[in-house]
């Protein structure tokens, strides 16, 4: 399996993997914190609406927030306990947003009425309905509601399912451990997805830096006609458009949805969660999260409950080694910097990374020297320096002409820039302004 034979995509970078600290650590269960803060906004789409009140006792898996509209999912209690508050609390966006605060009673009593099912006895429509009810969202970090992705319009026929086991972000090893420890759940999830989408062809993309996962899953999945595709180690191989290109050779057209190529992509963790939801009737209340970084004493892969405050995760991992300068939720390329450890982990928290003073270099911004490193690194084949320059001059029409809306905000350009120009921020500004203009008509 030489590097030159592995499938890949144009552009991209090779940041240091940094996965050695946790790649060999089995998943540990994270003990319950004294308080769980469950926000109503944990997914793309409208936040859920509260259906509980202070003082109420809730059971594990009970619905505490109802979905609002089609692109929305319900929110569930991660454990049984008492609702001690329904109020704005620190959120990963840096704002104070409405959340349900639950004090666990330790009994872990499941809510009644969660029914197991046999997928073969349910229609695709019924399966989608249950997935929606279980609050399933993309666990790769995007948190896009799964039932929406599984409802392609009639004019976009789907013929390929791609399972994303790439995990290209440095430091994160959650998906890797899941593939090693729960391959049967992933397989069950794939079979359910096959039934819903009515597809035969299934690829599982895994980066070549996880040879043990590839070796384990290839024979297991081959028996079911599922092909494991080893991919060249390059960031951002795990991005949807790049994954589709590498596995199938199909390119998503500019301004188009990935569905147009006839492919649906789901993360491995999401796939396993689908199996939990359909086979055991369990809603999405926990996930695997990698807690790592030089600021953490004992890095671990934890199975965490949704709503666990970041402070608790740090304590479970042996505490801090220094005063944190950067707290990242997610990976170091696309993760969101946090104001403090008070915010809770949610359905989309694939990782918590702590960096101390001087451990993440801060470069002062200099002028663009036209080196074109960003152009070479961009996986969407854009000109980040030009679009960002137009954006900072408020010339959003020109930014749009140069393809700003095709940017996937992967961070390759900012990483590659030797002048330290915040290119992704400029691109994001442009995208926001263009969308605002389209909305105003």
């Amino acid at each position, binding site marked *: 399996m030489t590097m030159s034979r592995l499938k890949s995509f144009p552009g991209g970078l090779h940041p240091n993997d940094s996965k050695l600290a946790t790649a060999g650590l089995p998943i540990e269960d994270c003990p319950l914190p004294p308080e769980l803060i469950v926000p109503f906004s944990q997914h793309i789409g409208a936040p859920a609406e509260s259906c509980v009140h202070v003082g109420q006792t809730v059971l594990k898996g009970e619905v505490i927030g109802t979905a609002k509209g089609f692109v929305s999912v319900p929110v569930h209690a991660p454990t049984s306990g008492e609702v001690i508050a329904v109020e704005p609390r620190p959120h990963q966006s840096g704002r104070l947003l409405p959340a349900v605060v639950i004090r666990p009673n330790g009994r872990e009593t499941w809510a009644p009425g969660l029914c197991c099912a046999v997928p073969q006895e349910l229609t695709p429509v019924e399966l989608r309905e249950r997935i929606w009810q279980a609050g399933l969202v993309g666990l790769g970090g995007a948190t896009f509601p799964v039932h929406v992705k599984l409802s392609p319009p009639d004019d976009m026929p789907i013929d390929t399912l791609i399972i994303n086991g790439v995990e290209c972000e440095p430091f994160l090893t959650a998906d890797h451990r899941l593939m090693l420890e729960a391959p049967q759940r992933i397989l069950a999830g794939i079979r359910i997805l096959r039934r819903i989408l009515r597809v035969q062809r299934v690829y599982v993309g895994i980066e070549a830096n996880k040879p043990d996962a590839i070796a384990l899953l290839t024979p297991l999945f081959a028996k079911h006609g599922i092909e494991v595709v080893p991919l060249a180690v390059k960031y951002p191989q795990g991005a949807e458009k790049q994954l589709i290109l590498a596995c199938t050779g199909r390119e998503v057209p500019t301004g188009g949805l990935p569905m147009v190529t006839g492919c649906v992509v789901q993360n491995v963790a999401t796939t396993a969660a689908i199996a939990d939801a359909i086979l055991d009737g369990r809603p999405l209340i926990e996930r695997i999260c990698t807690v790592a970084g030089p600021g953490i004493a004992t890095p671990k892969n934890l199975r965490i409950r949704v709503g666990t405050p970041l402070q608790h995760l740090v304590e479970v991992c042996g505490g801090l080694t220094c005063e944190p300068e950067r707290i990242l939720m997610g990976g170091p390329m696309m993760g969101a910097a946090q*104001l403090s450890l008070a915010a809770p982990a949610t359905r989309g928290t694939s990782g918590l990374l702590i960096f101390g003073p001087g451990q993440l270099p801060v470069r002062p911004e200099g002028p663009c020297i036209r080196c074109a490193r960003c152009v070479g690194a961009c996986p969407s084949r854009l000109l980040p320096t030009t679009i960002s320059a137009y954006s*900072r001059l408020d010339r959003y029409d020109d930014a749009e002409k140069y393809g700003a809306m095709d940017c996937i905000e992967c961070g390759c350009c900012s990483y590659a820039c030797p002048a330290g120009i*915040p290119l992704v*921020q*400029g691109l*994001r*500004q442009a995208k*926001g302004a263009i969308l605002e203009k389209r909305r105003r008509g």
Partner: protein
Amino acid sequence: MLAAIICLGLIGLASAITLGFAARRFAVEVDPREQAILDVLPGVNCGACGFAGCSGFAREIAESSDITTSCPPGGATVMEKVANIMGLAPIVSDPQVAVVLCQGDNDHAKAKYRYLGINDCRAAQKLADGPKLCPGGCIGLGTCARICPFNAIEMTPAGLAVINRARCTGCGKCVASCPRRTIRLTPLDASIHVLCNSSDKGGVVRKYCSIGCIGCLICHKTTPEAYVVENNLARVVYDHHLEALPAVSKCPTHCIRDFATGYPQGSALAPATVPLHSGKAA
């Protein structure tokens, strides 16, 4: 000699005939008033009127005969001339200037996080609602100063935007550019303002800013007609701005400023550039 005259004369005649035909064939209707209006406009092309530059404004006025939209940089003098050209009665309105309702620079207000990004207030505002603990205060990265077509906004060394009242024409571009709506348009002759934009309760404000309004109501109690306090924030009632002077010295956090005495701390603008207070104390 004669040959020269005939030669040039013939060339001239030929050209004239050709152009005469062309003029008829390619005739374009042009309103002479449009050109006249364009001549009296300042020609800055700032877009404050809402149209594409001065020529766009001129065309719009000539076509619609509607002079309710004014040209802020040109002011009353220009609009009067425009009205005369169109044969309409001029509309009289008070001149306005923009004011930054904040004095919370880095020496007075606390930060929420260390911002390492594009030097643009709108970009910084997108990250956790801005790098200041105060939700309404001036972020101080200078977006308004760069957008001002008249170079009327100064950024103090401690990161506060201050508007030069002598240079401001009230065009309103800074107002639109501020992501926190800290800048407002106010009447030019009103020189007293409450320079705070935070609706948080007094105790909360004190934690993050030493010069913000705490909603203590002292100004309102001193002169009820001149000050109104809503949502923990005081503001001057500009119809009664002449009676607002006594409360300025009574404010415990000194957030009320009389621009007649000078600009906020840190500003290099000399008070002499400020139009004199009309002198009528309450």
